[in-house]
């Protein structure tokens, strides 16, 4: 019973982290039809910005309780500066090209940003562990978990619910849904699709940066931080169906729980199970669990 509970809790924590990291990827694909490899770079940029800004402010005497707000602010700062630069400066000239070409361009940008990160922050690790242990811990039977893990779950729920509310209940969200459904008709109806692309890329990148910022207190922030994340994020959104918000949520939960169960009951299979789930889903639903129906164009 204790082990089953541990599987559930560990699975939920991991799913939350995965969802925060992956949801921006599915949003950008849904609207812009870009498989955005720079998502990993924004995750890393969020982590570095959070670690350096929070660390610097804590060193100057900032009350540690404010560090959670600073994590969020750091993610916002880095994505609002860098994402529009990339979208307006490079990507907008590529939209007419094939999806594979844009994929390669975002991969190239990912490699460039990796080096930019090294130029700015160097190769030495950054740590900001204070937010992780600040709130203390709670016990579940015989296991101890820091309350910080509940913040991760809360951030994941807030990201998912906020995104769903934005898409379903705001004017901008409804315009985005129209763009997701058909770009050409949206443009013909007077929607400023270019502006929608800019908003989407910035907001999707912000979600990745939030993932990195809230992961920073639990890891050593080092170069190549975004590599592992981008691979796992792709697995999650492919399972859920590229472009689907509920799909990303379900994909993250499936991967999180299956991985957690493997670690507890069959550790040898940990690496294998994530991709087993992906292969099984794709075998029966080649476009993922929540693939979006597309209107046939004649």
């Amino acid at each position, binding site marked *: 019973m*204790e*082990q089953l509970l*541990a*599987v559930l*809790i*560990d*699975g939920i*924590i*991991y799913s939350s*982290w995965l969802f925060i990291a992956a949801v921006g990827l599915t949003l950008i694909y849904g609207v812009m039809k870009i498989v955005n490899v720079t998502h990993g770079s924004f995750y890393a940029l969020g982590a570095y910005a959070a670690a350096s800004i929070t660390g610097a402010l804590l060193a100057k005497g900032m009350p540690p309780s404010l560090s959670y707000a600073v994590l969020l602010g750091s993610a916002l700062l880095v994505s609002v500066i860098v994402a529009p630069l990339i979208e307006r400066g490079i990507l907008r000239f590529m939209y007419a090209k094939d999806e594979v070409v844009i994929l390669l361009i975002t991969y190239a940008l990912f490699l460039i940003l*990796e080096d930019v990160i*090294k130029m700015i922050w160097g*190769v*030495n*690790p950054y*740590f900001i*562990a204070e937010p*992780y*242990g600040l709130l203390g*811990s709670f016990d579940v039977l*015989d*296991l*101890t*978990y*820091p309350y*910080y*893990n509940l913040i991760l779950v809360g951030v994941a729920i807030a990201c998912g619910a906020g995104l769903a509310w934005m898409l379903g209940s705001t004017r901008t969200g409804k315009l985005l849904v129209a763009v997701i459904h058909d770009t050409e008709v949206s443009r013909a109806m007077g929607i400023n699709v270019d502006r929608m692309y800019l908003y989407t890329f910035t907001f999707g990148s912000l979600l990745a940066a939030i993932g990195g910022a809230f*992961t920073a*207190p*639990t*890891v*050593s922030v*080092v*170069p*190549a*931080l975004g*590599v*592992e994340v981008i691979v796992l994020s792709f697995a999650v959104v492919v399972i859920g169906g590229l472009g689907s918000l509920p799909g990303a949520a379900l994909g993250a939960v499936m991967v999180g729980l299956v*991985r*957690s169960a493997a*670690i*507890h009951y069959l*550790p*040898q299979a*940990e*690496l294998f199970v994530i991709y087993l789930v992906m292969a099984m889903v794709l075998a029966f639903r080649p476009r993922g669990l929540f693939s979006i129906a597309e209107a046939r164009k004649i």
Partner: protein
Amino acid sequence: MHFANKLVIAMTAAAFAPAAPLAQEAPLKIGVVTFLSGPAASPFGVPARNAAEIMVEMLNGTKVPAPYAARGFGGAALQMQLVDESGPATTQVTEFRNLAQRDNVDMVIGYVSSGNCLAVAPVAEELKKLTVFFDCGTPRIFEEKSYKYVFRTASTATMDSVGAALYVKELKAGKIKSIAGVNQNYAWGQDSWVDFEASMKQLTPGVQVATSQMPKLFAGQYNAEISTVLGAKADVVHSSFWDGDLEAFILQAGPRGLFKRSTVILTTGETAMYKLAEHIPDGVVIGARGPYGPYAPDNELNRWFSKTFADRYGVPPNYAAYQMAQAILGTKAAWEKAQSANGGNRPSTDQVIAAFERLTFESPAGKVEMVIGAGHQAITETAYGVSKLVKGKMTVANVKRYPATMVNPPDGVKAADWIANGFKK
């Protein structure tokens, strides 16, 4: 003075100048391969590169204490060509070929990753290029094959695992009922755990393995693994994690109480002990992969090396830095022994290899003996201690040292067989 007179004097001086030193003037090109990017750069690659830069500069400037006072290698200056070790093993094989065939380096010194060492060794043999591994730990390199052109000047993971087992047995006074492991899922992590598990079973018969976790290299998130180990309530937890994984593991395991519930061994803990001093509680078993860093002996070479390194880089050298210095000094010792045997003339690669085999040399970490792996694999003593924070500075306490022959298998015997046979000589 007229130009003609100057010319005569210059020609006379040249004619009577000793021929041998001129013959030694051609510099030696050394390919140095270590992580310059990626998660392993900060704890391993960059300290190793820094050590290589210091050693090359100081050897060329004849500023290294005896017995390494001669310039460069046998009078020949050293030129270093750096290569980044990050990327898959296939990339490293390509980079090695580039160093050997395009850049025509005289030798290659490098490699932190066990996977890269396993991949590069056969290529070094194929290209007949003298190659010295400075850090990687898997014992499989010389157990599975024999190589003529490949040497390793640091001990294998077997020494770390056997030393750790001996230390915790003594620390816990033999009261160990169960052990658990959290190691990375590739050659280094697997070999480390296999040797530690086997050693513990030999030293404390009846010990149970509560769980063995093998997360992916650079996974970063270890909540589920930590839950499993916490739930297993093992007396001893062994981890050979390194780089950013080690640091993430310490940050995540600390608040969850793992260090309080079990005696945790971090076989490469020395690379993180200063950076994460406030996150490592007292009593964690800290390894340094040999007598390096806080375990280094008090000798002239060590005093010189640690001071020179700390003065230049502002931090003490960690074990990766020591191992790089050790590899360069070992190669220098072999080179100069071969040169001496060759009448003072530059030795051939075969002559250097003959001199390197079964060589004993001094390093900042003490005596290094190339006595296993048919004379191509080093053994050294090792040491373990437990973490202790003293006035905000991390130190090691309760240090125990283990002689080289106690923690390394004899020549020609596989580590697994040696351990299974009760460490018999």
